[in-house]
């Protein structure tokens, strides 16, 4: 890498960046930030309050908790009722299913435990050979390789009391759906940095090349997000659509082939149900036949349960950027972080939760 000519220390001037945005594309910009981590960083750093009027940031379906279908939660709850130990990422605990949540089931004495990694389940299975341990695997291409690695390790160690309930989802098919949606009229995508670390540039090229929508891969610090927005604004002004990356220090163009290899060895694509969006073909990851012994769906003969979301809940429209949380009639009235109706309010990365915590529509703080 050429370092000549670069200043010793890059200084970052957010106010200048906001002004630059205004100068580049003075009218309007409608950008979808796909990843929940972006959503939270945008709120936490107050980026919205620095944006020129007419700039719209739309939160996309990038929070793994939020897109987990209610039927999937119900399947997990039914598994818990069998007496198995269920380990899951902490965010999943308060997501309401039809008959409660992991948190409320734990309160009733069923054995649901918070895990910080897939490996926690493997270690637990070894410690408790007389119990069936199930890992509730959610998340995108960022967490799926860790689940796959855990399954390979479990096979190596010949662990028999461990299985995985895989609700992993793939990012590109969801983006394809959103990019094809004429109603959204997006002027750009801010693409998830972490997912790109694994997938690289290739799976996102179609956004610019086939759909004609500019896209920028960005990291999660405020300077990264503002750089991404400036790039998208510049592309709009020039009337071009390209895939760029401002996250070169973490994302290689080819991604992480090793992680993808592990993922491919263990998983195969399948149709998956996304909360509020519905069925998206080949957007989910199921365990391949040779790993059937670790597949909780097969091991416990689980049938996929149809999701029956709350009739007033508009999480689906929020996840696809059609409305903002304050436009949902349940927001702040029936649906709050203490008693969430929809998953977008539960998760720390959910759009509604972020709006609730950081954003006051009346009172001048944007």
């Amino acid at each position, binding site marked *: 890498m050429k370092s000549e000519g670069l200043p010793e220390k890059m200084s970052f001037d957010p106010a200048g960046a906001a002004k630059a945005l205004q100068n580049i594309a003075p009218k309007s910009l409608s950008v979808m930030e796909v990843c929940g981590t972006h959503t939270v960083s945008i709120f936490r750093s*107050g980026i919205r309050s620095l944006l020129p009027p007419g700039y719209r940031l739309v939160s996309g379906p990038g929070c793994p908790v939020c897109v987990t279908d209610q039927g999937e939660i119900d399947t997990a709850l039914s598994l818990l009722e069998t007496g198995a130990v269920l380990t899951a990422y902490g965010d999943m605990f308060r997501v309401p299913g039809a008959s409660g949540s992991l948190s409320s089931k734990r*309160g009733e004495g069923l054995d649901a435990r918070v895990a910080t990694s897939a490996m926690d389940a493997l270690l637990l299975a070894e410690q408790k050979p007389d119990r069936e341990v199930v890992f509730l695997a959610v998340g995108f291409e960022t967490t799926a390789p860790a689940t796959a690695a855990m399954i390979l390790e479990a096979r190596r160690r010949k662990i028999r009391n461990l299985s995985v309930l895989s609700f992993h989802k793939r990012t590109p098919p969801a983006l394809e759906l959103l990019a094809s949606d004429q109603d959204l009229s997006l002027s750009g995508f801010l693409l998830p940095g972490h997912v790109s670390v694994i997938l690289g540039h290739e799976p996102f090229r179609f956004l610019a090349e086939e759909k004609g929508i500019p896209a920028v891969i960005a990291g999660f610090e405020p300077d990264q997000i503002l750089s991404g927005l400036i790039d998208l604004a510049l592309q709009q002004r020039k009337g071009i659509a390209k895939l760029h990356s401002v996250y070169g220090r973490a994302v290689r163009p080819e991604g992480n082939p090793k992680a993808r290899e592990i993922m491919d060895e263990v998983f195969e694509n399948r149709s998956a149900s996304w909360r509020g969006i519905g069925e998206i073909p080949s957007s989910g990851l199921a365990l391949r036949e040779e790993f059937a012994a670790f597949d909780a769906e097969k091991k416990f003969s689980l049938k996929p349960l149809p999701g029956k979301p709350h009739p007033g809940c508009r999480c689906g429209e929020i996840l696809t950027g059609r409305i903002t949380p304050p436009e949902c009639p349940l927001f702040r009235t029936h649906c709050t972080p*203490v008693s969430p109706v929809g998953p977008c309010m539960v998760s720390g990365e959910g759009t509604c939760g972020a709006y609730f915590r950081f954003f006051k529509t009346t009172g001048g703080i*944007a």
Partner: protein
Amino acid sequence: MSTITLGHGSGGRQSREIVDILLDSFRRRGIGPEMEDAALLPGGFAMTTDGFTVSPRKFPGGDIGHLCVCGCVNDLAVRGAAPEFLGLGLIIEEGFPSGELLEYMESAAATCSELGMTLAAGDTKVVPSGAVDGVYFTGSAFGRIRRTLPLQMSNLRPEDVLIVTTSIGRHGAAIAAARFNLSVEGLLSDCAPLWPSLEPLLLLDGLRCMRDCTRGGLGTVLCEWAETTGLHLSIEEMRIPIDFSVRSVCDVLGFDPLYMACEGCAVIATAPSCAQEVIDTLRKSPLCGDAAIIGRITEGEPGGMVSMRTLIGGERLVDMPFGELLPRIC
């Protein structure tokens, strides 16, 4: 609310709701307490009581015995009272190693001795294996008020300056790191008695109110002040002292340092005229070298809420945390 959840114990909004429900029977009879860290009693005395269930019981920077004394002492200190007497209740699980228990008694006694406190009362209960996890401590502290003008939330005024006595979130981060097996160099709980560090401040007439930031952290205390007074509190992210190690743990685990528990940090509101004197006085204490002005109270909008100017110059709300952040933090 049909059952109690871990969210009710997190120190955030749900904790406040459950406390209100629990106190209802007392309040209806007109015999409920004020919602401050310690009670100011007739005759110039102050008292407080607190339970300790921390897991792990030994953590970098302290243990449950030391924590129990500090927690009680700090509740008195922020109300301007000198700690004098301690009451100590133990609930011990059958089979608990007595050697470990004696270690905690030793560290509790050492902390009391440093502060000139006497153990005045105590109780010991043993319950069958599985009925509690190891040992739980309950402490009560009693002492004399050292200031005529009471320190309380109703003193808060627009223009008051907000100060923290040290860098925030170290206890929560140390416990979280221990719980999730993260090895973080230099990360210690801030668990320490705020007395006598706060004592010289009691001479300042402009001192309005002090709070011990425990569960729920700095953010929760500020939200309580805003909601109770209806005033707007405005803070600046750049001015809040946060150690690098605390930021690291928060980044890895997805926590916000504003909500991480402290056990040796107070937030202080003072009239602008004596803000600098508060800072100068605090910085003379070895525990308060990082004391800093972090913002002020305003008459602005939105009332009853806290806003923060972010590092990049944006503006956002700071709300109380929800749900279970990290159970058994203290």
